[in-house]
């Protein structure tokens, strides 16, 4: 299975750097998925969830508040302002990440619907982790 090289960078350091099977991004014009060999594209992201399908079949969710994505055929670079990855070794860690993600999203999102939908998505993602 082919993979794409994904980098998620924030001003305080990389959050994700590695191969992925596919990635779903919250584009300004709506959500879109990227598979390997995608056409080159650069676009803005809005606050939302980046879903990564990793090489080993597991998924990882990263909550972002703003971003730009640059896609070249086998490489995806996501530049974001603030991001929280929903991951952790224990339930406590995951719960902490969830709280951080929720506060991040409520600090930028202006509509309650968006906050609710993002919260629901990350909660289900967290549920799958446990």
């Amino acid at each position: 299975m082919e993979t794409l090289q994904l980098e998620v960078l924030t001003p305080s350091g990389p959050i994700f750097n590695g191969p992925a099977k596919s990635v779903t991004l919250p584009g300004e014009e709506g959500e879109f998925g990227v598979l390997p060999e995608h056409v080159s594209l650069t676009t803005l992201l809005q606050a939302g969830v980046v879903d990564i399908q990793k090489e080993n079949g597991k998924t990882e969710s990263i909550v972002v508040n703003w971003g730009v994505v640059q896609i070249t055929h086998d490489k995806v670079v996501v530049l974001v302002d603030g991001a929280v990855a929903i991951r952790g070794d224990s339930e406590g860690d995951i719960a902490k990440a969830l709280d951080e993600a929720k506060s991040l999203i409520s600090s930028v999102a202006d509509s309650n619907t968006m906050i609710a939908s993002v919260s629901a998505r990350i909660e289900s993602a967290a549920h799958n982790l446990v």
Partner: protein
Amino acid sequence: MANLKEIQRQIKSVSNTQKTTRAMKLVSTAKLRRAEELAKRSRLFAQKTNQVIAEIAARIQCNKVGGIENRCFLENDAPEMIDIIFVTADKGLCGGFNMQTIKAVKRVMAEYKNKKVKIRLRGIGKKGIEFFNYNEVEMLDEVKNLSSAPDMQRSSEFMARSIDDFKEGKIDAVYIIYNGYLNVITQQLHVNRVLPVDVSAYECDVEKDSMLEFEAQDEEKMLDSLVTKYAEYNMYYALIDSLAAEHSARMQAMDAATNNAKEMVNSLKVKFNKARQEAITTELIEIISGVESMK
């Protein structure tokens, strides 16, 4: 004998100072490592952001009639008002670190004053602010406790004012002046122009084969929001770079102070021994002459 006690007291006081400076050096070394790591990780983001901005700007420049219209990319040869943002440390005891920045600020200010350009000075860091307050130089705003604990959100809020004013046309350029980190023993002074962004270095034909596609309608919009982030990020980076430099400067200064204290203790010890010898000799002479007179 009084002299002896006095010297002993001095030795004690100097070696106490030495202990303090050595501790401060160790603290700075540890903090430097952390700050350096932070700066290193952050640089990756800077590289990519610059790359993306340059690509988009070059593309618009080459494909659109009349080139870029966005104010943030246009060179302005006759600025009327500029923002100068300086970053100094909140604390002293770091050698010439703060003074270098202050001197650079004064130099740049003098340069623009000669050209009859109005300057808005915005300060970060207690030391620089104190200096300009003392010299009665007017400042637009002052932020303390940010350079010792860089924070993306606070620096963005601070920067937002300059960015907004620039976009509205109130100011024509934004400069950031800070003393950055080069390596453990050297600091490098940076005078960076953040806005307008300099994209003249990127040639049109570089992008021809990259086949970059955009969501067509939002090129300008994307550029606009990218530039804001770019400027905010530059501010943040200046802060963390300056913090790393501050620690390295302090480390050096404290190292020098420790060595000086060591030398001082040595020379005081020599002085002490001499004085002691002198006291013994005097005492001996007194005893001998006493014995002689008894004969």
